Structures are given as C-alpha cells and as structure tokens.
C-alpha cells in the first residue's frame, strides 16, 4: 500500500490502530476535566489564550500611554499612573505575553512535530500553566489597587529600593517575577526532556525541525538565563523587606550589580522571545515555498550560536553607566557578532523563497512582513552595538523604536502568522482569506505608523519614559503620528481577533493537512485527538511528510506494538541523539494536584506580599504536600508484572522491558 499524502497517512493510521489507542487516552469533560487535564494540546491552547488576554490588557495600557503622549502636556493620566502603565506594559508584554505565548505554541506543537503523544512531564506542564495564570493574576490585579510595578520593566535600584518606592509596587514586581519564573523554568525543562527523549524513531537530532531546535535552544537559555533574574529579584525583595544591603551603596552594596544581573538575564531573554518566533517563520517559509529550508545545518548552527553569544552581550544595555572603555569594546564586538546568526536566518529564508515556488497565503504574508520589519529593527540594533552611537541614543525613543520593531515585528508578526498557519490544527477550522489580508495590511500599516516615527523622535532628543513633554521641542508631530498609528494598529488587531473568532464560530472544517506542510503535525486530525498519533511513524529525513518512506510507515508500523503502544496510556521513549526506540513509558492520568500546588503557591506569594509570613508558610506547605502526593510512587495497574513492552523481534531478555515510572 502506498500512501499519497499526509491526510492519507493519518487515515491509514487511524484505521489500523485508532480505536485500540484511543481507549487509553480518554478526554476529561466538564469543570473537573478542565481543571485536571494534562493534555498538552489543551494546555497549549490555554497558554495561548491566556497570553492573548494579557496581550490585550498590556496593549490597552499602551493605548492609554499613547493617548497621554498624543499631545504635549497631556493630562489623560497622572504621572504615577503613567509610570505604572509603562512598567506593567513592558513587564507584561515581555514576561506574560511573549514568552508564554510562544511556549503555548511549543506546548501544542512540540509533541506533534516530534511524533509523540504528550510532553515528557504532563502534570508538570499543567502545573506550569496554572502557575503562569496565577502569576499573571497576581501581577495584573496590582493595577486595580494602584500598586502595579512602577520602576520600569528593569526596575533599576536604588529607585526600586524601599527608600524611594516605599509602597508595595516593587514587591509585586519581584515576587510576581519569581512566581512566574517557576513556570518558565519548568516549561523549559519539560521541552528539553521531551525533545531529547520522546522523538519518533529515526528522528535523529539532525532531522529535527528548526522550530523544535529553536524551542530547545530557547529552553536551554531559560535554564541558564533565568537564575540571574531570580537571584536579583530575591535580593531586591530581601533588601526591601528585611533590610539587607545587596544593592544599597551606603551599606557597601552596589547599585550596578542589579544592572549586571538583570541584563545577564535580560539580553538572553530577548532572544528567548525571538528564537521561537524565528522558528515559527522557519516552519512557515518552507511550507509555502514548496521546498525544504535552505542550508539547514547553518540555520541550526545560527540558532545555537545566537543562544550562546547572547550570554556575552549584556553590557550593551549599560554603555552609558561609565564602565571601562575596554569592556565596552568587547561587548560592542559581541553585539556585532550576534547579527551574523540573524543574517544567516534572514538569508536562509530568502534563499528558500528564491529557490522555491512561493504561495502568498496569509501566513506567508505575515512571514514576509516579518522579514522586512525585523531587518529594520535589527539594523538599529547594530547601530546600538557601536558604543558612541548608543551612548547618544540610549534611553531615548530611538531605543523604544528598536525594540518594538524587533519585539512586535520579530515576535508578534510570527505569532500572528503562526496562529493563522496552525489555526486549522488548533481549532479544526479554516480562516477567511480576505479577512486575513485586511488584518495583515492594517496591522502592517499601523505598526509602521506607530513605531517608525519613534526613531525620529528619539533622534530629536526625546527621552523615553517621560509621562509628558513640553511643546515646541519638535516632538509634537511625531508623537501624534505614533498615537494615530497605535489606534490603527489596535483596529488591525481587532480585525485579526474578529477574524479568528468568526472562524471559530462559522469557519469551514479543516482537513488534516490544508497547506501541504512538511512536518509531522499535519499527519493528524484537525484538531488532533487526545492521543495525537495512532501509529508513531518512523522518520527518515528532515521533511517526513514529503518523504514516501515516512508516509508508508504510518501504515506499516501499525503492526508493531512498539509503534502503536496500545497497551495503556503510553508513549514511546527513544534515545537522545539517534532516536533509537527504547521502550514504552506510562504517562500520568488527569489529576487536580497541579492545580492545588499552584494554588498553594499563589497563597504563599500573596501572603509574602502582604507580610503574612505564617500564611506564606501555610501556602508553601500546601505546595509541598501536594508535591509529595504527586511524587509518591504508586503501583499502577499492570506495572507489577507482565509489562513486557518490546517488539516482536525478541523473546525474553534479562534486561526486562518493564514499564517506567514517571516522575512528573
């Protein structure tokens, strides 16, 4: 039997093994199912929706800010409110929108692209989501009480110390970010373990899709970059609450230590945000160019190199604090070097398109728009890497323009493009092409109208984070343009949102593979069933669904117990490098424990914030005991004996193929 395309592969696998497998992968319903689910697809969608809500909130904050700045001497909000707005806008966009949104993509897509059935630690995944949601609640509710963070998203000491900000604002900041860090670190570790251990047989590391590479590199960066931030926030909290002197110059502490620690996190963080987004582009471009990505080893190397170099450039955010010139030359060089991996990726996509046959579908438009806008943002980044120019333009609106070009252009464009690209997979519906075009062009125009004038305002000497400005300095027109653009942009995003919502209600049902994609997720139903794949395929190349051998394996392997794993709630474990199949692993069932644990943490952090240390200990105890409940070794049915899980090839061996216990 020869299989023609991905849809055929999906159908063949479902016929052969669908029922046998689906029995073990029930779907929870109702409120209980909603709270206890550990399904990576539900959690991934949930991440994305929550992050989109935070995006809307932070975007509305930005609109209020732009309204205040539309005219000189604006009186829309008071300076105290403005400070909270821009701080929460930056914090929320960076921490509560960009990273979780992309981690939502990762959660949904990683197991599908790898050809497995769930993340390595499904319960930990659910826990990560609940912690993220709780931390977002923690952070955003502070705005209602007027104690939102108000020292900018990087909260420089001493301004963020207890002496100059005595209220709770920065306790909310430090505790909120520590709280969120638990979720981000956990997700990163989960992605790493999944990508290393649960790939489909044959998917060696050099056949892994670029998006997965990007996500894995991002996860490693999270593991290495978040600790400095967590440490800095813990020290800040101790300084503010318990009178330690880490950052207090009069006590021997150092105000610059905060900046070093923050940016040692902060710069890798901007690539933590942008790398998965670039990965999305690397998934969209080959599909619509009808050919594999150009220079795959080089683009993977570029991704890895970006991750590594990004740890050596943090001082470019501190060029004006008076460091030794020699140090600045080094960081300037490193910041320049990091453009080369970016250039590699840009020209890899361009090369793919130049060699390919381009289909200008809506996701592809977003990718093309992204390339242009990201290059514009990137070249201003290169300008900053030159120390004298940075010293002139740092902390001016030129910087604001740069980072919105790379953040909105470099992360939000791919995110929206990715939403349009995988929307059939997420929801099982197709979107309207005409509405998609409207949405793209409105956002593209609004975006450039909002942020391009900021370059000029910055060059004309306008500092950032000013709640108002005097008339007659030559900044009025540019700010008015920016504000008009912001409203146009909001309109475009509103159109985008309504397009998607309309599709959710009225869209046509989507086939498994609407675009003719190359990676494994298109060989599942739209949306995929709880078990994702009825038969785990064997991968022979970078583009499994354009490869007859893999397509055929959907049918052929349906006779192999190893590839079907129909004896329980099981996934297949493979080796780290070469994806040799090892054995089946039993996955945990739905459970409310992650929710309870996250709730305990919410209690603990809220009590810490309000100074109720006993209640904080109680919350931590709830967390601790639910963890113990979670990790208690249980005897699962069938694991005591007779759990042979090997292929038909071998009989009894001494190293028995027992099922494994999972720890998370």
């Amino acid at each position, binding site marked *: 039997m020869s299989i023609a395309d991905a849809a055929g592969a999906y159908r063949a696998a479902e016929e052969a093994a669908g029922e046998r497998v689906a029995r073990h992968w029930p779907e929870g319903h109702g409120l209980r199912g909603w709270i206890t689910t550990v399904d990576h697809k539900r959690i991934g969608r949930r991440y994305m929706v929550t992050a989109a809500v935070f995006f809307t909130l932070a975007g509305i904050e930005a609109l209020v800010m732009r309204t205040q700045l539309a005219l000189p001497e604006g009186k829309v909000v008071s*300076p105290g409110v403005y400070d909270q707005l821009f701080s929460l806008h930056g914090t929320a966009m960076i921490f509560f929108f960009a990273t979780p949104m992309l981690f939502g993509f990762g959660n949904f897509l990683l197991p599908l692209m790898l050809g497995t059935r769930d993340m390595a630690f499904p319960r930990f995944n659910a826990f990560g989501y609940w912690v993220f949601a709780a931390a977002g609640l923690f952070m955003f509710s502070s705005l209602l009480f007027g104690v939102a963070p108000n020292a900018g998203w990087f909260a420089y000491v001493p301004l963020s110390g207890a002496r100059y900000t005595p209220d709770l604002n920065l306790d909310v900041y430090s505790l909120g970010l520590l709280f969120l860090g638990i979720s981000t670190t956990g997700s990163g570790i989960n992605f790493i373990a999944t990508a290393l251990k649960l790939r489909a047989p044959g998917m060696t590391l050099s056949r892994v899709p670029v998006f997965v590479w990007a996500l894995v590199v991002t996860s490693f960066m999270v593991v290495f970059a978040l600790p400095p931030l967590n440490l800095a926030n813990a020290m800040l909290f101790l300084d503010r609450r318990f009178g330690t002197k880490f950052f207090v110059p009069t006590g021997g502490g150092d105000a610059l230590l905060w900046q070093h620690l923050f940016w040692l996190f902060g710069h890798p963080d901007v690539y933590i945000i942008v790398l998965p987004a670039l990965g999305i582009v690397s998934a969209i471009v080959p599909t619509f160019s009808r050919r594999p990505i150009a220079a795959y080893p080089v683009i993977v190397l570029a991704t890895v190199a970006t991750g590594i170099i990004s740890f050596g450039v943090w001082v470019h955010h501190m060029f004006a604090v*008076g460091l030794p010139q020699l140090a600045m*030359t080094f960081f*300037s060089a490193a910041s320049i070097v990091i453009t080369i991996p970016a250039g*590699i990726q840009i020209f890899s996509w361009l090369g793919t398109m130049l060699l390919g046959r*381009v289909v200008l579908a809506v996701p592809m438009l977003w990718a093309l728009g992204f390339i242009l806008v990201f*290059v514009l943002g990137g070249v201003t980044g290169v300008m900053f890497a030159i120390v004298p*120019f940075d010293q002139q333009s740092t*902390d001016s609106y030129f910087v604001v323009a740069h980072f919105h070009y790379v953040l909105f252009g470099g992360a939000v464009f791919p995110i929206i493009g990715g939403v349009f690209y995988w929307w059939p997979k997420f929801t099982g519906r197709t979107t309207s092409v005409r509405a998609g075009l409207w949405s793209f062009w409105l956002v593209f125009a609004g975006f450039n109208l909002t942020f391009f004038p900021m370059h000029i305002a910055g060059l*004309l000497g306008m500092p950032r984070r000013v709640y108002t400005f005097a008339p007659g300095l030559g900044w009025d027109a540019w700010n008015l343009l920016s504000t008009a653009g912001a409203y146009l942009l909001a309109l475009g995003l509103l159109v985008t949102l309504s397009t998607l919502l309309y599709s959710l209600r009225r869209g046509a049902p989507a086939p498994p593979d609407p675009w003719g994609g190359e990676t494994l997720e298109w060989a599942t139903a739209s949306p995929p069933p709880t078990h994702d794949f009825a038969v785990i395929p064997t991968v022979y190349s970078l583009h499994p669904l354009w490869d007859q051998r893999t397509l055929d394996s959907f049918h052929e392997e349906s006779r192999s117990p190893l590839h079907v794993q129909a004896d329980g709630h099981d996934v297949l474990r493979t080796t780290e490098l070469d994806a040799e199949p090892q054995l089946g692993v039993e996955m945990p069932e739905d459970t409310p424990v992650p929710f309870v644990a996250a709730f305990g943490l919410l209690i603990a952090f809220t009590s810490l914030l309000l100074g109720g240390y006993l209640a904080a200990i109680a919350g931590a105890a709830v967390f601790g005991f639910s963890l113990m409940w979670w990790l208690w070794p249980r005897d699962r049915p069938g694991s005591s004996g007779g759990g042979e899980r090997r292929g038909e090839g071998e009989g009894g061996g001494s190293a028995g193929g027992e099922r494994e216990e999972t720890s998370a």
Partner: protein
Amino acid sequence: APSTLSPAGVGARRVAGLWWLLFGISVVVAVLVALLLAWVMARRTRAGVHARTGSGRAFVVTMGVVLPAIVLAFVYAVGLRDLRDLAVPRDPHALVIEVVGHQWWWEVRYPASGFVTANEIHVPTGSTVRLRLSTADVNHSFWVPQLAVKTDLIAGRVNEMWLRAEHDGVYRGQCAEYCGLQHGHMAVHVIAQPAAEFASWLAGQARPAAVPAGGAPARGLRVLEASSCAACHTVRGTRADGKVGPDLTHVGGRRFLAAGAIPNTPGYLGGWISDSQSIKPGNAMPPQPLAPEDLRSLIAYLGTLR
C-alpha cells in the same frame, strides 16, 4: 529642538557623523532585503515556476556571513576610533563642574569658584569642560543631545564626561534615566557663552545675594528668612541655608524654574511657591501657605536675585 542631528558640540558632531554612516549602511541592507522580497513576490509566485532542490548553502553563507562580516568589521573599526576620541581627556586645566542629580532637579557646583547653582550650566564656548557626575538619590542620566553623548549618574559612584560647545547658545538637555514620578520634568540647560561673558557670569554668581534697599523686596527677604523657605533653600548672604532644594542665590537670573518645568516669570514663580504640586506633581517642595502680602513680596524679592 534638542536634536542629535543638529550638533553644536564636538562629541555630538562626531556621533552625528557616525549616525549618517550607520544610517547609510542600514538603508543599503534594508533596501537589499526589500528588493529580494519584491523579487520573490514578483517572480517566484507565478504559475510556471518550479521549486528547485539545491541546498542554497553558498548563498546563505555569502550573504549572511561573509558580506555582513566585512561590513561589520568596518563599522566596528570606525566605532572604535570614535570611542577612543570621545574618551575623557586628561586635561588638567579644563574647567571642572560637578553635577549632582536630585529627584528631580540638577545641582550644579563650580568647585574652583566655590558656588552652587541649579538647573543651568554656563560654559565658555570653545573650551573643554569636564563634568563630574554623581547623584544624591537615585540614578539619573545627563544628556544634552546637541553637545555630547549621555552619561549616567549612578548611586554610589562618580562618573566623568566632557563637552565642548562650538557655538554660543542655549542647549536644552534632559534627564535620560527613569528616576521616578517627575523624570519627564528634569531638564537642564547648558548656556555656552564667549569666554569674557562667562567670566563675568562666574564673578556674578560667586557674589552673595544683594540686600534689597526697601519696599516689597526687603519685606520679601524677611519673609524668606522667617518662613520655611530657609529650611530647604540657600540664599548666600542671608540666614537661609537649607540644603534640600536648589540654591536660590541668583534664581532671578535663570531662564526656567523647577528644572525646566516652567518659565521663570513672576506669575509662574507665584504659582510655584503657592502650590508647586499642581505644576510638578510629586516634587519634593510642599505647597507653601503664605499670607497673600507675604507671597507678593517674596515674588518681588526673588525677582531681584539676579
């Protein structure tokens, strides 16, 4: 406008030149990418086009590694040269001015002449001036875009920078590091004057405040000494020796009040004294409830302090 692109100082001029170089390179890069995109959209989307399966590695390495490396090496070298030239000169004869940042105003000291003023820095045109920057509370950043690149004022440290104005003029600058509520109203004005004019300004500033002969200003002086102004402000030559707010010895001669927030006119001065919080919310000067007559004479007195 305080534009970085209309430089009037040596440092700013160098950086403006650098900007045009960087801008040119960026335009080339952006236009190149835009042209390639246009080519793709025009030529690779037609009906008869077939995808080709080459690796494309040569294209990627050439365009993404080799060419950028050459361009970037050149840019880096230019940047290094400018960075070296912009280093603080070790000129022992340069005029040294100490600038202390406060939330949210600038204290300016001329150690050689031994006086203190605020929010306005006078410099002689054409000669190098070294600024020694420190802060009394949180971080600030000293930025006069037309004269020199910015340098931060970091708590617990002293940073140095220098500037040399090329033409006479008044150059507006602003604090460029977020420092709290009124970060947006923390402007500074650098006034470049011919050397002779500057010398006479120095001499004038070094003198204590003139004692008014009589009338409203004399009464204003009595009000100033008797009321709470004296607890926060210094007027040299009177009993007012507070250290919380700006030195008012020659406040009448300044162009702006409250770090550029308002012009220095009697009307604004009166409003500032009565209720500065409605003008610059959150600043450290509380509203001063004064008897109407006292307020008017105080305005008259401060107006005489030139």
